[in-house]
């Protein structure tokens, strides 16, 4: 029974999308969101069941190529899986009351369900080519979501942003495919579990470095790593609220998950060789992202750059090649997904009400006009700057601890410098979030907004949709053991080659 759970997990959203396609158009349009909510809730429940039952599926797929339809969940992928299903369900719930201007809900819900198939598949796939397939599946639905339902205020802007997004990510993926083929052909198998067990035993160092570079490039574009990050701000500014939430909350996680699941265990010598450069680029991303945030005047763009900065922390943790660092990276991954998802929900709500996300036009006084929304914005900002007691802190702290004491094959003074620079990044992050709150939430409102009729505070419905995220952020902040208990054993196993080098 349990080996049908994961294929069911993939089939449910696909069936939902198919159902919406074949149903009669007018009827489908009316029930689209409710059907979508039902499907995503069911998917979430199946995901919980699968995680609890430790589900796995391993079936022969294409014998001549050595491909297997291998799916499974473990401590690293289960939090991401649950977060994905949860966020998608919340997005569907959000759509119940908050209709996008472009309408055509049937198509939007169908695309989001297809997106979910891709996202879920990436996190449960345990075969390299299967992983690649699902990695790519998310691109086309996301293109449509941005290009058709995105922000239309700049003519052609959403189309351009969607184009950059898909072409850039696709370019990275092509390079990644080269890496995958390199690994698969040299090792003789595409199975992730087997490759992780072997820890690159039968691949020469040169091949490993090459493979890591190729795989790394594909993941780096998705992460996004500086300097391959420029697609993100435009994509986020143009995307609709649900698109931004899923983009920031899930799609960005696929890149770093790929590093931990695919690149680190399979080509450990390659990882060791490239890790210092990865760390340097990560730290540049942290500081650069923070400084760029201070220069932005569009709220969504600002949060996009803050994502670049936070994912820089995740990459730094990965580049330390220690269990502490990678645990921190995974924790920061989850925390960022939740917190930035919440931030985009909030900014989307602000944008819907004011019809702009520009800080200059919004002015200050959000606390005064909409205290609940302002309070939640303050909460999300404080969580995002890594306040201890909320989810963001543990990830950042463990990453810095990992950089303080990196794997023994790495240059310690170099990593200490990286750690100090990342520390300045922490201070800069504090500065820009405090600055955002000061410019948007505090202060007095413009008269125009005060006179506007439709300025409602966050409705009870919206608060209900956001409450699970808020609760999780607090719980993960006060009880880090939950996540770390699950991820630590898996991370130790994935990094076992590094520890052999230690001994």
């Amino acid at each position: 029974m349990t080996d049908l759970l994961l294929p069911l997990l993939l089939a449910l959203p696909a069936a939902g999308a198919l159902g919406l396609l074949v149903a009669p158009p007018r009827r489908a349009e009316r029930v689209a969101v409710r059907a979508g909510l039902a499907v995503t809730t069911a998917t979430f429940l199946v995901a919980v069941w699968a995680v609890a039952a430790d589900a796995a599926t391993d079936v022969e797929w294409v014998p001549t190529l050595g491909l297997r339809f291998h799916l499974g969940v473990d401590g690293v992928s289960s939090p991401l899986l649950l977060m994905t299903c949860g966020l998608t369900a919340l997005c569907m719930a959000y759509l119940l009351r908050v209709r996008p201007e472009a309408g055509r809900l049937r198509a939007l819900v169908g695309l989001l369900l297809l997106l979910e198939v891709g996202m879920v598949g990436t996190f449960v796939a345990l075969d390299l080519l299967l992983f690649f397939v699902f990695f790519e599946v998310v691109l086309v639905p996301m293109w449509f979501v941005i290009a058709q339902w995105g922000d239309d205020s700049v003519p052609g802007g959403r189309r351009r942003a969607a184009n950059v997004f898909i072409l850039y990510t696709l370019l990275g993926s092509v390079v990644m495919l080269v890496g995958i083929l390199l690994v698969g052909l040299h090792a003789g198998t595409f199975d992730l579990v087997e490759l992780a067990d072997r820890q690159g035993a039968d691949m020469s160092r040169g091949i490993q470095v090459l493979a890591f570079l190729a795989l790394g490039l594909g993941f780096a574009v998705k992460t996004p790593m500086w300097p391959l990050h420029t697609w993100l701000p435009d994509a986020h500014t143009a995307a609709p609220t649900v698109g931004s939430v899923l983009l920031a909350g899930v799609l960005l996680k696929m890149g770093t998950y790929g590093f931990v699941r695919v690149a680190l265990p399979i080509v450990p010598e390659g990882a060791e060789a490239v890790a210092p450069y990865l760390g340097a680029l990560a730290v540049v991303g942290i500081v650069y992202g923070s400084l760029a945030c201070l220069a932005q005047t569009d709220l969504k763009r600002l949060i996009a750059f803050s994502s670049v900065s936070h994912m820089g922390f995740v990459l730094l943790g990965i580049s330390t090649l220690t269990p502490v660092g990678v645990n921190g990276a995974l924790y920061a991954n989850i925390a960022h997904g939740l917190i930035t998802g919440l931030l985009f929900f909030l900014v989307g709500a602000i944008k819907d009400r004011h019809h702009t996300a520009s800080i200059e036009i919004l002015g200050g006084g959000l606390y005064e006009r909409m205290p609940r929304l302002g309070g939640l914005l303050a909460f999300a900002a404080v969580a995002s700057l890594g306040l201890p007691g909320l989810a963001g802190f543990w990830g950042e702290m463990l990453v810095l601890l990992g950089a303080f004491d990196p794997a023994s094959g790495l240059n310690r003074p170099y990593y200490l410098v990286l750690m100090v620079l990342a520390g300045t990044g922490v201070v800069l992050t504090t500065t820009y979030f405090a600055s955002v709150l000061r410019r948007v939430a505090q202060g007095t409102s413009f008269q125009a907004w005060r006179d506007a009729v439709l300025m409602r505070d966050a409705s009870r419905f919206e608060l209900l949709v956001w409450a699970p995220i808020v609760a999780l952020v607090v719980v993960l902040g006060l009880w880090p053991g939950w996540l770390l208990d699950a991820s630590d054993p898996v991370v130790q196993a994935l990094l076992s080659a590094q520890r052999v080098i230690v001994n």
Partner: protein
Amino acid sequence: MPLLMPVVLAGLLFSIGAYGVLARRNAILVLMSVELMLNAVNINLVAFDVWLRDELLAGQVFTLFVITIAAAEVGLGLAIVLLVFRQRETSSLDQLTELHEPDPEADAATDAAPEPVQERAS
């Protein structure tokens, strides 16, 4: 007679034909030049056949093939040129360009890169 003479003749005829195909604009002249090239090839075939004293007379048989096909081809070609002339009042090759690649304009749809979003700070 020595082999050199028919070969040189064939070469000369071929070159003249090639020049005609590549440099003349009138479609009929191009067809005539193609005929010249084909006949040059014919001369070559016969000359080498005799020089090699082939038992099967392959060269001469092949020449007959070429003559037949050239005749068919010219008939077809002239018919097409006539039809084109009736439609367009011209038989100049320079003016028959429908299958060309159009001149690349500033095409927004194919431009993969975005312009910066207007509201960004400088």
